[in-house]
């Protein structure tokens, strides 16, 4: 899949994952990969700049928690603002998707 397309929607994908339940970095990647079903492959480290950007924007909040392995894990929770942003961006995506499909039909039809 086109890298720029994936890059532009990374924040939206992460918010979508966190809207289901709070999670930490490694688990977020696992869940995204499971959802992607081989459509794209993550450079896992690049998730963190996205997460930190969302945190700075107030769309997610974080909390350190002790894991059963004895280490600490930083959990990410979606905020109310994050949910609003997710709704807005999903609507934007839908509108954009509709437009692309319409134009594709015209070209192919």
């Amino acid at each position: 899949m086109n890298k720029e397309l994936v890059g532009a929607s990374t924040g939206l994908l992460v918010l979508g994952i966190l809207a289901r339940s709070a999670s930490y970095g490694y688990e977020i990647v696992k869940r995204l990969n499971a959802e992607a079903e081989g459509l794209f492959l993550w450079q896992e480290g690049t998730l963190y700049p996205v997460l930190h950007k969302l945190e700075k924007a107030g769309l997610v909040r974080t909390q350190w928690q002790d894991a059963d392995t004895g280490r600490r894990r930083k959990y990410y929770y979606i905020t109310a603002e994050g949910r609003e942003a997710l709704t807005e961006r999903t609507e934007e995506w839908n509108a954009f998707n509709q437009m692309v499909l319409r134009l594709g039909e015209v070209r192919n039809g």
Partner: protein
Amino acid sequence: MDDRVSSETRKQIQALCRKISVAHHLDAEIQEELSGHMEDKLAAYLDGEEALSEQDAFILVREHFGDPAALKGLLQDVHVHEAHVSLARRLAVAFAVTTGVHAVFVVAARALLHVWPALRGFGGFQALLAVIAVATAVASWLFLLRLQRGLAAGRTPWLLTRRPAYLAGIAAVLSLMQSLAPISAEFGASGPVMGSMLVWRLTMVAMVASPLLQCVLWLWWCDRPPRRVRTAVTVAGVWALCIWLTSCAGAFLRPGVLSGVPSPHVIAQSLAVLAYALACALAACGLYAVARCAATGLARASIARR
């Protein structure tokens, strides 16, 4: 602690994460989060169906994680504006530093002329003028880069606590001191002698605009170092033009405005300074590119060896 990961591998993971430092007070927390991710991934490989050695699993983790230098850049982009220092203040600091450094080099050049009078000839003049301009640019850039890194690490350098007006005052005094006794007069060359009001205005605009443009360029480079060779080369070219403008604008403007045609002597001087500055800028840019490629190559070689 997770018993499946040995302390040796854990140290390797932590060493890898330290490379992703963003020179920030959140470094420890960010590194803990990243190393936690890597340990989770490592444990997942070790629990998998394929029989992987611990070392093999670590190589896979590093490969999947991506280039630490690229990640460092992305994280720095996110965390760079923590200090909230205004652009006006940073510009004033850059301007004061540039002027101060230039004053130091001018004094050093005068001392050199006393010791070595042969430098007063034509060739010596153009060489020393260009050396002062380039040395000022390089020294100021290094100083400002250090200042920016301190700022990004959460420290507020003394200069950045001063008011812009105070710094502008210092820069103005230093500029005035230099303009009262221009360096070119020492060599008997055609310096920025104020032949008419138009020449004076144009010279002053060039002399002020050029260092300011250089300051903007440096601040931008410190904030977001260029990642493409084309950008770096373009910046180096603009930088060289700034140096040329600062060094030669006065000498070039005077005959151009008064008689319509600059003398061949002035054109030769001017072009020599421009060529010298451009060569220095491109050389610096080339060294930067080589160092960056070498660092990437070493990282790749290190991964391949393992």
